């Protein structure tokens, strides 16, 4: 080979990716051509210099606070098991007075949850643990946990009231209510699991909010039946 090696061939020699025959011819040329040998050496020196370039470059100091704020706003938190129901909540189970209170609770809880769902979730939120179903260990975003606080309190109060009103309901009504509650709880669990996989999905948040509203409405209607 009398012609000089092309730039591509030189690179392929350095990278050792030439086919065996081509590599043999290139090496033979390099052994006899000072020009190509010099170009190859320059390339190798440059690449060695590049290889010694700093593997790490310190990032700007403000990068971590921004990362932290973002992950705090998206953070998911565990849900622990359910503690015993507080008997004191049964005080709400007293006829029409309870019904009016329950209706107000439903309205406030549902409204605040929906508001929280649709608002821009850019503010960091403190970690929290929320207990829902016995033995549940699923997780939800902090934004949802915050929104759930009022919902969970309402469910607690309505559940206690319904439990107190239980003697006034027929066995058939109790069976239907419990079956529907189980279905809604399963839907909540499913929505939470989906949110865990995709915490920023607002559609899923709205689905979860709708399921919460269903549960509150069912509890409210069941309690109304007991007092009508």
């Amino acid at each position, binding site marked *: 080979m009398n012609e000089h090696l092309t730039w591509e061939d030189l690179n392929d020699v350095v990278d050792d990716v030439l086919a065996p025959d081509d590599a043999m011819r290139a090496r033979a040329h390099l052994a006899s051509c000072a020009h190509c040998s010099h170009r190859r050496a*320059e390339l190798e020196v440059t690449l060695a210099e590049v290889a010694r370039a700093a593997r790490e470059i310190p990032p700007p100091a403000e990068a971590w606070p921004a990362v932290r704020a973002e992950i705090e706003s998206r953070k998911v*938190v565990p849900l622990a098991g359910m503690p015993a129901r507080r008997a004191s909540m049964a005080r709400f189970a007293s006829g029409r007075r309870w019904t009016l209170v329950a209706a107000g609770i439903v309205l406030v809880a549902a409204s605040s949850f929906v508001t929280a769902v649709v608002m821009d979730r850019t503010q960091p939120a403190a970690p929290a643990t929320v207990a829902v179903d016995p033995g549940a260990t699923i997780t939800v975003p902090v934004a949802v946990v915050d929104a759930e606080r009022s919902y969970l309190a309402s469910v607690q109060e309505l559940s206690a009231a319904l439990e107190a009103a239980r003697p006034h309901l027929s066995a058939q009504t109790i069976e239907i209510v419990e079956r529907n509650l189980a279905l809604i709880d399963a839907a909540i669990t499913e929505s939470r699991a989906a949110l865990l996989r995709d915490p920023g999905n607002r559609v899923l948040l709205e689905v979860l909010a709708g399921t919460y509203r269903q549960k509150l409405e069912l509890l409210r209607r069941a309690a109304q039946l007991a007092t009508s």
Partner: protein
Amino acid sequence: MTSVPVSPVATPPPPPPDEGDGELVARARRGDVEAFEVLYRRTSGRVYAICLRMSGDAERAKELLQDVFVRVWERLESFRGEAAFTSWLHRLTVNVVLAQSRADQRRGNRFGTLPDDPDAGRLSDSGGGAASIGHRLDLESAIAALPPGARKVFVLHDIEGFRHEEIARLTGTAEGTVRAQLHRARKLLMEALGR
């Protein structure tokens, strides 16, 4: 029926400085931000170097760095520990940078808009101490000044050690194109360095 009190999570103890990546990942998975910060402190220099060199822009690199670590936080569950955490992290970093580059190209944005424009990737700021060293500044500036497509291939191959076929797969281009970009990048780099 359901009963639902709300209680705060106890603050976890700070991780010991010599705790391994695996233990820190496990703690971070449980929501321990302090453990995640230790992981960040250990690895962000390398991640930032990849982002800076591949994007050629310090402000863009900072955005990419933040994006990478937010994604890492969200995807910690998918890290199975089959490879080293740093390997998983660097792969994720490259994927984030390339995905963002493609998205920006689709939007006709600043990053990668003009793949053959040698001025498209000027390093606006070193972003750290490395560039304070004279010859390294020359080298980093020369890398940053490469055309975006060639620069990405060059960084992946000659700095990060990816093979031609891996780069072709990651960038969705033919292996021959990757080699051509690499050869071009080296030629331009040597010219910029006066060789």
